């Protein structure tokens, strides 16, 4: 089990997407990328992701972050590559590091 912190940008194409909707974009991208994300326990398990602070609607940024928890061992480089392929235009992963 490891944790990977990603740093990403929120660009022009996607700046009018709310933080909550952006979280849903990431969750679906992680599923499509088939990354071994960890889930919480219980009746309604959800992905173990801790999100950085919400950006104001309409603002762009190249310093957003989120920390993903995985089951087993996943290389940060793999997370970056696989996730990048699945994200829509306007979100770019700038860095991925073990934490």
């Amino acid at each position, binding site marked *: 089990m490891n944790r990977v912190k990603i740093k990403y940008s929120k660009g022009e*194409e*996607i700046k*009018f*997407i*709310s933080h909550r*909707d952006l979280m*849903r*974009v990431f*969750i*679906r*991208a*992680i*599923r*499509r990328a088939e990354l071994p994300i960890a*889930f919480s326990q219980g*009746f*309604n*398990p959800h992905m173990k992701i801790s999100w950085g602070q919400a950006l104001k*609607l*309409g603002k762009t940024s190249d310093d957003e972050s989120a920390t993903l928890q995985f089951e087993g061992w996943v290389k940060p480089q793999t997370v970056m590559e696989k996730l990048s392929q*699945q994200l*829509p*235009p*306007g979100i770019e992963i700038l860095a991925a590091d073990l934490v």
Partner: protein
Amino acid sequence: MKDSLEKILPEVRKPARYIGNELNSSHKDWDKAKLHVALAYPDTYEIGMSNLGIQILYYILNQIDDVLAERSAAPWPDMEEQLKANNIPLFSLESEKPLKDFDLIGFGLGHELTYTNIYNMLKLGGIPPWKKDRKDSDPLVMGGGPCVFNPEPLADFFDFFVIGEAEELIEEIADILKNTNRESRIAKLEALAKLGGIYVPGHSNIVTKRHIKNLDTTPYPTRPIIPYIEAIHDRAVVEIMRGCKWGCKFCQAGWTYRPVREKSMEKVIEQADEIMKNTGYDELSLVSLSSSDYSKIDELAKTLAQKYAPKRINISLPSMRTNTFSVKLAKEIARVRPSGITIAPEAGTQRLRDVIGKKMTEQDILEGVKAAFSNSIESIKLYFMLGLPGETPEDLVGICELSRKILALGKTYTTRARITVNLATFIPKSHTPFQWEKQISIDETLEKQKFIKNNLKGKGISVRWHEASASFLEGVFARGDEKLSKVIEKAWELGARLDAWSEHLKFDIWQKAFAECGIDPNVYLRERPKDEPLPWDFIDPGVPKEILLRESRKD
């Protein structure tokens, strides 16, 4: 365009409704396409994006090399204000082109209370709403979807309607329009009118519904567009069957989506796998009008549940008849424990259920309730209709008695048992055995609602109802005629928009519009003599009128 949008989007609610660029949306080269189609949904983006018809047609059209299909939806009033203030025409989400630049606008007609939005979208898109005012350079305006089974109230605004299932003939339509691109509107429409299933107002022939023959071979959007904002149905959807075998006499879908066609289990699974891979949704919904009737529903649901449970993907089965089997199945396949179920007795007594052709006995209902509560479900939603043909005071008492009986039964399992009683007003629809029946007035609806509300009080019961004025308008347009187009225009002028939203529906505007046009709307709600010609008689939905007549008997 980019710059003006930049300026107005921060000023409106949910700006993501207007930005496009969603996963799986199609971005083609405008100049290379021979035919430009805008699929327009006459309600908000979130509702339009949950419409399977729009997703299917978008998918089929964009698979054709030289055809480009884009989308547009009704703007929220704040966006309409901004568009007008900044002289921006209503545009497509993909290329941000004004609607008037397209060759064909296709509206999905899902509900009668969207008609002012159609007028509004044409107007905002730079297209003359009245067909007679359009020139050869204006787009053709096409309508499809459930409301085409009585298209007359809209006939003045549309160049043509597709009667039945548009996926069956959309490629033929695209072909004709590609090859007649430089010809006049009249020439285009004459070519289209030769296709079966196309109604061109003014050409007064019988139009026979078109429908697909085989659900396995018809294209299905396994790469649906995924909205950024939460759509009404925020999940992957696979249609497993079309049509319904039950023939309830009030149900238009049951009579117009015939015959019943099943998709094979292998095909459902294949499409489910593709759609889950292409979307990343955490829920897969298997849909049809009545999924309990799918011949291998048990095997299908369990196979998919087994496959997707490890991926934390939930399988859901809406439109199941509630009984021991369905409750057990739902419980077995659900990753998340279902907290409530739905039962639609429609009428309060056995006598009236028999009259309306709802083949459900009180024993069936109570068995479903027991199954639900004994499987730790705590809440039940009940659906009833007010004003059904042949309804007597005993039937209203029956709604209360049956509801109380269900709650009492629930209380024997858990003190937390609760029921929600939903009251709809019966609206006679075209091409059903009840198309000649009377619709009750607003006052009568309110009285009946009040009776039920007063008699169903107490812990564990809540009563909900459809707005009487909304049902009234729906009923007027459902059985209306071509005289209503000027009422739609008048209501629009007076400010009617998004009438399906109770927060926007202003009934006094409609009253004024009817009065100013000299039309008594109550005329449309009256009982029609069986020999009176009906405005929709020229549409042949595949069920002969003699059968509807025979089924219309109330004894």
